[in-house]
């Protein structure tokens, strides 16, 4: 049964890279009764542990989402900004953005002279307030904002913002609530700053120093008319990653995930992503190296205010995470 209420809360929660305070608190509240230990490290990673005496396994899903950071508040009350994580100027026109304090704004464009290209520098936020003092009091350089959009569900799919990677967090939360009976020493890590370079995963990987690591993150699909060519599709099952730009998955880890899927009747597909990376990138290069893999959730329309995934795929991912935790 898909827990819509939890997913909506996770998607709506404010948490761009470097400002994960609220999403961290939300997740702590959800999981605190289900784990043996909870800690937060200097970068803000949330590390939850189900103790065991056996193999040390680390799962990682990132809490942060992409957003914008205010760089200037001008005399007229307009805000200038730059991107936090992967966002292109042309995808931002006309979008509604929301700040941590609940105030909102709309992205507008300056006049473009003959043949001038649209860049971040040509955009600005209009917060819809004519009182310039109010703007100065309530918006400061350094404030961040994220997409404002409505969570929406159909029979089989969900359209929402920040599926990347709140759906990964959802999966880890549901998996750890049903943590299998096992001797394994399992760490469920909700990492920070993945969107700006998988930074939280680097330090968390170093601290935990696991025997096996599995990241849980979204991946693209090849089932729409856009330019991405891939075999992965919605409803094709949990995607077992083979390779992306940050990692060539250790063949033994890939084989283990395949074996667990077949043994437990979990629907799966293989994934090769020709761009991008996940937390497994820095983790697998930690210290002497860590055999690592990724369980991916196929998602359309990544890095927009309406990312789309299949609820059935999510179920399969949860099953696979649980199987890996107990193996």
């Amino acid at each position, binding site marked *: 049964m898909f827990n819509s209420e939890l997913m909506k809360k996770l998607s709506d929660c404010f948490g761009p890279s470097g400002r994960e305070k609220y999403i961290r608190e939300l997740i702590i509240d959800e999981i605190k009764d289900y784990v043996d230990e909870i800690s937060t490290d200097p970068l803000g990673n949330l590390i939850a542990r189900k103790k065991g005496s056996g193999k040390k396994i680390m799962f990682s899903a990132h809490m942060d989402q992409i957003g914008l950071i205010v760089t200037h508040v001008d005399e007229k009350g307009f805000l200038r900004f730059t991107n936090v994580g992967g966002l292109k100027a042309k995808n931002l026109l006309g979008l509604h953005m929301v700040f941590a304090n609940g105030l909102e704004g709309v992205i507008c464009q300056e006049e473009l002279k003959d043949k001038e290209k649209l860049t971040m520098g040509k955009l600005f936020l209009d917060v819809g307030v004519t009182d310039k003092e109010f703007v100065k009091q309530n918006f400061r350089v350094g404030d961040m904002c994220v997409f404002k959009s409505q969570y929406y569900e159909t029979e089989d799919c969900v359209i929402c913002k920040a599926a990347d990677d709140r759906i990964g967090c959802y999966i880890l939360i549901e998996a750890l609530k049903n943590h299998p009976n096992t001797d394994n020493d399992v760490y469920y890590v909700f990492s920070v700053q993945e969107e700006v370079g998988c930074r939280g995963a680097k330090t968390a990987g170093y601290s935990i120093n696991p025997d096996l690591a599995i990241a849980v993150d979204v991946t693209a699909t090849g089932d729409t008319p856009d330019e991405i*060519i*891939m*075999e992965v599709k919605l409803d094709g099952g949990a995607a077992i990653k*083979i*390779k992306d730009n940050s990692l*060539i*998955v250790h*063949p033994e880890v*890939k084989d283990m995930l395949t074996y667990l899927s077949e043994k437990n009747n979990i629907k799966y597909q*293989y994934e*090769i992503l*020709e761009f991008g990376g996940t937390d497994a990138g820095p983790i*697998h*290069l930690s*210290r*002497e*190296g*860590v*055999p690592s893999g990724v369980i991916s959730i196929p998602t359309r329309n990544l890095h927009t205010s309406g990312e789309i995934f299949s609820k059935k795929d999510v179920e399969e991912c949860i099953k696979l995470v649980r199987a890996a935790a107990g193996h």
Partner: protein
Amino acid sequence: MLKDFLFDICSSQFVSGFEHVNSHILPKYFKPYTDSFEKDKLGSYIFKASGTSETNIMLAAHIDEIGLMVTEILEGGFLSFTSVGGINPASLVAQEVTVFGKEKIFGVIGIKPPHITDAEERKKPLKLKDLYIDTGYPREDLVKMVKVGDIATIKREPLSLQGSRISAKALDDRAGVAVMLETAKELKKISHKSNVFFTATAQEETGTRGAKTSSYKINPHIGIVLEVGFGMTPDMTDLPQLGKGPIVAFGGRLNAKLTKKFVEVCKKYNYPLQYEAVPGRTGTDAEALQITREGIPCILLSIPLRYMHTSVETIDLKDVENAGKAIARFINELDNSDLEEILCF
């Protein structure tokens, strides 16, 4: 013999991330000259020749090569693929490949014939997604033999050219691995005090990954990185020449005094040497070694090579022999020097 070793390993597949597949080959050659063998968690091969002192010296040459990976199995027996490591698509046209599926499958990468390609299209730069491996099987049969994620390499037999020149695929960086073997042979003849770790690192082509993990594991006092470098051709005349000796690098990634010491040793014993300046990134395992843990002082030695990252890479065997001897002598000289003095600022 050097040529036999190179011909053997250049015909074997070690694509980045899959270095474990032919795992019997390197131990066969390195065993006679070393005391122990282990791997790091990424798959790098570490052969240790024990000495009598506490000093640990790590030699690093990457065993992995660039390759192709199957992404889709199409009607008509065609395979779509992506690259593992950096490949110029133009160098794949009209090539034969071996696909490592359930068994080895032969394939060809071709392009549309000139009759139906207009002049405009012929001038456009090729992309990987424009190319396909043609296996000749119908799709129903092919899917039983090949899976998404399977690896393929160009099918190329190593070739002897004039004199001591050879041409093969993956001389980047099998030439470096050959230098390590030559060094191991030389060191066995002259005794050495330092412990020498001959490391065939994994996944260099995808980001010097094996160098990070193996150097963390070994934690040596110094590192000697063995690579290939760009050799002179008519369109690039201000580069080092094939046959005139290995190339030693100067730059921030490398320890200046250690490099200077190496140059002195080469001058003293008359080993031919060429030079290059590298201000920033070296594009080699030195990137990882220099900043592992508290830092590892390194030198970088490269074998001049033409046509890098194609299947017809060309080197002069004399350069490999000279490099091997020079490094063995260098290690010997370091054994009898004040290493601490050399490394201090």
